[in-house]
């Protein structure tokens, strides 16, 4: 059976920042699906999308890829398949 992984504090802090920005993106996406002409919301969306990318670049340099199938770059050796998985932290 898999073990719970204790990751450094910076892992949880960075991850939480990503979760916060990505939550804004989910929320704005659903909102824009029914309010497609709201320019302010679209500006907020693009700003948050930019911040999310920046945060994920920082995270991935320290803790490996967040996404598979080429949406993140790989280190050597292949580290996509490495634990921890989200339910293990």
């Amino acid at each position, binding site marked *: *059976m898999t073990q*719970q992984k204790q990751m450094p504090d910076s892992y949880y802090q960075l*991850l*939480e920042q*990503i*979760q916060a920005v*990505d*939550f804004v993106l*989910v*929320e704005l*996406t*659903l*909102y824009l*699906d*029914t*309010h497609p002409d709201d320019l302010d919301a679209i500006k907020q969306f693009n700003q948050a999308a930019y911040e999310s990318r920046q945060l994920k670049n920082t995270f991935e340099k320290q803790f490996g*890829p*967040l*996404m*598979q*199938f080429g*949406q993140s770059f790989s280190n050597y050796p292949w580290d996509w398949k490495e634990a921890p*998985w*989200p*339910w293990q932290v």
Partner: protein
Amino acid sequence: MWYYEKKLQYPVKVSECNPRLAKYLIEQYGGADGELSAALRYLNQRYTIPDKVVGLLNDIGTEEFAHLEMIATMIYKLTKDATPEQLVEAGLGPHFVNHDHALYYQNAAGSPWTATYIQAKGDPIADLYEDIAAEEKARATYQWIIDISDDPWINDSLKFLREREIVHSQRFHEAVEILKEERDRKKVF
């Protein structure tokens, strides 16, 4: 297609091993108004819903899979260290003899998930009202689990999920209005 991202939508922490709470949470894993039902319901309806609201069904359906993963994480973390005796005590004896510690798509009473939980009428208004009802039922279920749970970490995550159901319901209401407007415009011209 879909891309997996190695993170939960919102953090899931548990205070301690608590298989009894896990047993109740299974309702939102494989129950009628649970997250699996929600994801499959919306993603299936999107093929025949008018273009104006396909995006919304697509995106809410996708978010539901993130919620399914959060519920799975709660159940996994609440049961992974439980002994067989503790599982029996929590009422999960029948689950244990069939599945050990594995998760399974069933409701809190042990009935396996079934496609009869979801509808697809092909009538956009009927489908969207079904979706609104599903969101309100999921919201109510989350409230009742929160009412009987005393794990503050789990309750924090459950409150996040409860609020998401409220937002989804609101967006589906707006989708109904968008379609009604479009229908009325067609009648005028």
